[in-house]
């Protein structure tokens, strides 16, 4: 009686059996890689805006304080994107004819708000409060990255829940003295470990509650 399969069939069969064994694991690994990828998190993505506003120029160049535009950041959950009038306080004198500022002028003229593209987006079931982070000595650049060196604003961090938890589980490395919160060049000093621990106490940070779901989800 003749052979049903050729000699090669054996290797083929082995490969098939082996792949059945490992495919599930590959699939999971792939999925995880995808979830972490920029494609999903949007990290370091720059959206184009109606006006090519440069934080680099305004912060590093002119040395404007964050709070000049983001005025409610110390009191409110939202930092506040400045109303057109804020832009015009300067730009009614400076670059009054600049082409790129046209949208700002029309906005004021026609009383129609500027439609900016949100850069740091959190899901709707996440309740982030700027003011409390400021109050607890977490600086702007800790989450928003080196804004002072961004010609165009981009999302600096992955903003995944895991990333939030890094700090909520152990805030020590990130806590600044309150005066340095708005310092765009702040780098953790050598003795950050001790300082952070001290501030944890001084700022009454209840890190037992920090990882509770209710802290961010309501």
């Amino acid at each position, binding site marked *: *009686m003749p052979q049903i399969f*050729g000699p090669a*069939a*054996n290797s*083929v*069969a082995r490969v098939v*059996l082996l792949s059945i064994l490992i495919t599930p694991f590959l699939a999971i690994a792939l999925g995880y890689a995808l979830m972490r990828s920029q494609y999903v998190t949007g990290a370091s993505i720059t959206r184009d805006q109606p006006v090519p506003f440069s934080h680099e120029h305004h912060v590093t160049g002119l040395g404007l304080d964050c709070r000049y535009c983001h005025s409610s950041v110390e009191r409110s959950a939202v930092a506040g994107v400045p109303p057109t009038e804020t832009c015009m306080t300067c730009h009614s004198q400076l670059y009054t004819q600049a082409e790129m500022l046209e949208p700002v002028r029309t906005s004021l003229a026609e009383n129609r708000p500027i439609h900016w593209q949100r850069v740091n987006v959190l899901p709707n079931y996440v309740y982030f409060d700027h003011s409390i982070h400021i109050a607890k000595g977490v600086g702007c650049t800790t989450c928003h990255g080196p804004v002072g060196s961004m010609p165009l604003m981009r999302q600096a961090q992955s903003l995944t829940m895991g990333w939030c938890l890094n700090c909520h589980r152990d805030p020590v490395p990130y806590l600044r003295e309150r005066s340095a919160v708005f310092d765009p060049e702040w780098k953790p000093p050598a003795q950050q470990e001790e300082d952070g621990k001290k501030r944890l106490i001084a700022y009454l940070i209840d890190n037992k509650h920090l*990882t509770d779901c209710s802290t961010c989800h309501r």
Partner: protein
Amino acid sequence: MSRMLLAEFATGEALLGAARQSKQRDLRVIDAFTPVPVDGLAELIGATPTRIRLVMFIGGITVAALFYLLEWYSAVVNYPVNSGGRPLHSWLPFILPPFATGIFGAALVGLISLFLTAGLPRLHDPLFAVEGFERVTQDRFVLVFERPEAAQHDEAARAWLTAIGAARVCEMKT
């Protein structure tokens, strides 16, 4: 290059008898192929006792242990939460998933080692080409000897086999 003698029997007993007696006449049994397991045959043809049970045990325990470790790490170390005031390390409920997965692990490891020892998959094998070999999976019992070098011994062997009731005796090259 070795040659083999294939003797085909109708029943397990016949084959078993042939295998036994072959010990006296210095014929070396290489292997036997049967449609159903024949008790005692494996020992007779000198198969080494299998350690598959041990392998399965170790495999099962390992999987279970790893799973329990995962539970403990996730619930106590990585993200401890208060669930209904139960202890973080609630060992009692933690036992159940490792138990189930452990048993599956044992089964899987066993399957792998079964395939390895039995050399499966083996879709292509010279024996399949042997005339009438297809019947070993149905109703024929085949005993395989190493064919003696000397012609007269070979003749004697064939004669003897037919005498003790081999339905068919043929040889095969590998």
